[in-house]
């Protein structure tokens, strides 16, 4: 049947399905650009989960008590799990997991720039959970309705766990903010360092975002970068006020008419520099992941050799 239809007709039918909110499944026909856009987005998302393990992993061995250590371990483990679902979702589109990972290591594939900032104190575990996972939820909740079935279903599970991560981060911050002067200063310092990078997580302004329009037409994306960023600011500012921390933005004010917070200009120069590889930890993060793969090569080879031996023994 496919042969009989022209590309144009196929694309029309595809867009009709999208318009009717019918999910696209791995074996359905899809435009090549749709496939490539999804592979790029899902694998970037997977890489972000995996690279994102490192800044928090940095504090597991120094977590201040048993409960915090266990919760942080569980959280970072969830992230590895998210990486796994997402690489699997990318595989349903024909992307090879190992090749995708090699693209990360060569610098060809990107991941969320937020993980190129260092985690300097324990309070950063709070700031990351609260702000970074908070921003991720804003981005990801609409993805549960994404037109591509496997991605949408993976996101349902991911979002449930992310909301737990966000709460644990906020709880760390709230605890510190009510603690000793040193603890409160530590919390404020973490907020100061992570606030702007968290706003940058939503990507460039709509006018600068080259993928947004097409992605919205395909219902991969449901809201623009600026809409999501505004939503994040509106939700997060009152939370900071509630625990007595100050958002590091002198231009921040509530607009009674619009019901939204107005906020200062993001340093886009910094944003693009970190994207290009000039962030404080870009080199370290990728190098660490590359080394993990390299140091584990003999393990993967052994596992493969062993399973082949077993197969041969069985068939012999």
């Amino acid at each position, binding site marked *: 049947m496919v042969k009989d239809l022209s590309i144009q007709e196929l694309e029309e039918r595809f867009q009709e399905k999208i318009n009717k909110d019918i999910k696209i499944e791995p074996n359905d026909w899809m435009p090549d650009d749709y496939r490539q856009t999804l592979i790029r987005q899902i694998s970037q998302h997977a890489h972000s989960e*995996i690279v994102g*393990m*490192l800044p928090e*992993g940095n504090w*597991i*061995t*120094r*977590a*201040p*008590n*048993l*409960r*915090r*250590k*266990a919760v942080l*371990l*569980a959280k*970072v*483990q969830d992230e*590895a*799990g998210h*990486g*796994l679902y997402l*690489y699997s979702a990318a595989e349903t589109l024909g992307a090879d997991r190992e090749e995708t990972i090699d693209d990360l290591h060569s610098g060809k594939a990107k991941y969320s720039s937020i993980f190129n900032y260092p985690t300097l104190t*324990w309070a950063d575990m709070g700031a990351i959970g609260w702000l970074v996972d908070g921003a991720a939820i804003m981005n990801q909740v609409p993805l549960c309705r994404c037109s591509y079935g496997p991605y949408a279903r993976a996101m349902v599970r991911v979002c449930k766990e992310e909301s737990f991560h966000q709460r644990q981060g906020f709880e*760390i911050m709230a*605890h*510190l903010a009510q*603690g*000793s002067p*040193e*603890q409160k200063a530590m919390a404020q310092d973490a907020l100061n360092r992570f606030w702007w990078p968290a706003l940058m997580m939503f990507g460039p302004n709509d006018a600068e975002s080259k993928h947004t329009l097409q992605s919205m037409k395909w219902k991969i994306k449901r809201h623009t970068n600026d809409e999501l960023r505004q939503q994040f600011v509106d939700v997060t500012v009152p939370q900071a006020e509630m625990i007595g921390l100050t958002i590091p933005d002198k231009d921040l004010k509530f607009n009674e008419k619009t019901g939204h917070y107005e906020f200062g200009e993001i340093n886009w120069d910094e944003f693009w520099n970190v994207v290009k590889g000039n962030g404080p930890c870009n080199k370290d993060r990728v190098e*660490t*992941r590359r*080394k*993990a*793969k390299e*140091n*584990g*090569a*003999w*393990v*993967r*080879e*052994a*596992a*493969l*050799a*062993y399973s082949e*031996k077993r197969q041969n023994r069985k068939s012999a």
Partner: protein
Amino acid sequence: MNKELFEYVLRVGDDSLILGQRLSEWCGHGPILEEDIALTNIALDLIGQATNLFEYASQIEGGKRSADQLAFLRFDREYRNLLLVEQPNGDFGDTIMRQFLFDAFRKPFFERLTFCTDMQLSGIAEKSLKETKYHLKHSSEWVIRLGDGTEESHNRIQNSLDSLWRYTDELFFENDVDASLLNEYHLPILSDVKQEWIKNVENVLNEATLTIPNNNWQFKGGREGLHSEHLGKILAEMQYMQRAYPNMEW
């Protein structure tokens, strides 16, 4: 307070804590994503066991110190863990072999500890046993895979076995603490545990085509607070927050 019981519970708790701490160093650095998840999961189980055991130890001590104070604020010579669990992660083979030798001990140990007459200890043993069975399955499978995998993996894991074997006698170390508790609490008899341990270890190593080293010089001391140089560094990292910011809630 029952000093001997306190000491006994600390031993088990310290083994879990220090190995959990070591394994959590792997987070984000595993050879495959699945193993990053598995090692983190095992670390999480061990930290959970340590928490239960320190909470109980705190109770035995009459609440003098909290579970966190026991975990984070003792000095080096007060930790009672085995030398085996404080050994560095090394490569993935070293970590797996350390885990296997330990899991193979922990399973028969916890099985017997479920019969102890102290209800809290037997309850903790029961919960920990479920986890340990899974840990042992995981580490045994990897020992076999690496031992019977490639020439490189075989050599590497044989080296791991050769260097870790010297810490295995200590698994069955007993002193006055054991002697005074054994009958009253119906605790595991470590010579029985050893019999089961050696049987299981030999089976797995055999399947993995690995050989128990001839050099059988053995180290001990951990159970009485005499550790390797590694413990001091583990504690420096683990205790950092509690030492730098004393008496604070987190």
